[in-house]
């Protein structure tokens, strides 16, 4: 096949194939139904009218541990769920991989660290993770009351595992929620998520 023809095919491939699967800020967030660690089912579209946070989690990842051992993530969960935000922690680690937990293990952990999400969604097959193209733990998404994705990216601007970096970090999720709940536009809506890779099934 000629180079020219290859190129035409390529252009077609790239222009047609991308939009269907993209998870983009400013566009509707993909709907999903997933089970939590108490066996309850949650459907995103049922939360229309509320802000929803998705937080990808792996308790053994050093970047996640930085947020939890400092108490930072638990504080954010507490603050925003008290203000009516639905906060879903999502675990997409496959069985046998780092961060995989049973429902009972997860419930014990939530109590132990005083985590305060609305629910923890268990996604051992990685379906929700792949739907949102979740890359790292943590990886944060915020969805507005009209189901529009308004934030996609990192928890903060200090991509390290060092607990001492939290004090000086600018927390993108906190800032985005402050703005959005006050009816202001989100200033920084896309950042590079940082952390461990999500431990999807092979």
């Amino acid at each position, binding site marked *: 096949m000629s180079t020219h023809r290859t190129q035409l095919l390529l252009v077609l491939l790239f222009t047609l194939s991308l939009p269907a699967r993209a998870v983009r800020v400013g566009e509707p967030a993909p709907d999903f139904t997933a089970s939590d660690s108490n066996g309850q089912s949650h459907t995103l579209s049922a939360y229309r009218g509320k802000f929803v946070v998705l937080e990808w989690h792996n308790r053994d990842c050093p970047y996640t541990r930085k947020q939890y*051992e400092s108490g930072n993530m638990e504080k954010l969960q507490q603050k925003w769920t008290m203000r009516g935000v639905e906060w879903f922690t999502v675990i997409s680690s496959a069985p046998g991989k780092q961060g995989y937990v049973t429902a009972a293990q997860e419930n014990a952990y939530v109590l132990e660290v005083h985590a305060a999400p609305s629910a923890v969604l268990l996604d051992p097959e990685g379906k929700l993770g792949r739907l949102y193209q979740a890359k790292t733990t943590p990886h944060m998404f915020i969805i507005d009351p009209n189901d529009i994705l308004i934030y996609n990216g990192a928890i903060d601007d200090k991509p390290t595992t060092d607990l001492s970096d939290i004090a000086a970090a600018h927390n993108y999720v906190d800032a985005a929620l402050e703005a959005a709940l006050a009816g202001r536009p989100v200033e920084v809506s896309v950042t590079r998520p940082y952390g461990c890779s999500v431990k999807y099934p092979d």
Partner: protein
Amino acid sequence: MRRPKLAAISPGLIWLLFFCVPPGSGAEALVQSAPHTKLGLLSETDFVEPGQTLNLGLLFEIEPHWHIYWINPGDSGEPPRVKWALPPGFRAGDLEWPAPARLASGPLTDYGYQGRVLLMSPVRVPHQLSALEVMISVQVQWLVCSDICIPAKASISLELPVGHAAPSPPEDQAALFRAARESLPRPLPPGWRVSADDLGGAFRIRLVTGAKIQRVSFFPLEFNQVENSKPEISTPLPNGVEVVVSKSDQLLQPVDNLRGVLVIDGGGSYHVSAAVRQGISREGRERASPATL
């Protein structure tokens, strides 16, 4: 107020590896074996010459199946970071990053190094030095990953005599620095041209050298411009080569400039920076309409 129980853990504990070793002398200070990585501080010469550049290098020896990261780590991870402690008047340059490898795991792609890699840093030495010996220290933080990731931290020091003579450095050490220099991306040679086009869902980067090149791979320096895990498609041209890379799904605005490293299969690597020509996307789509196929 409820305090998370784990908050009492001291920040130091999160570092699974922490080393403080006595200073090495001669041209090499090696940190003892650490889980998954050994780190050494090397000098290209075994003395410091006033007014010259002292080439230092951090040698990472990484266990099989583990890796560390490039300056743009890709979808996950974090590049090594250094904090130099140098004598007054010494000035460390930025780390020099060899061309990385593409490291895929599941739906994610990272950019980094496996095996052995030397990250060099050129240090300016002041013209006046009264000391007979100088102490070079560096604190390094890095992340080493396989399926899981482990943060590591080490402090290494090296004592070097001040001198003007030019004794030959240990041969294996000189060879390491030579090899590291070979693996650094170079500026484009005179006469070579690089251009970039926005194709709508992808960027096309074209390298014109005057001769046909089989394959090239692009490593972006900026985050969130390119979808790291989407396969790139490289096509030889009579006078060079081109590669089509998928745009990041997260782009909110057009990209004006693509900066990165082009790695030619079996033929070196080059720093490139190309203004992105917009507008070709409409033409591209028209040309690609089913009727023309």
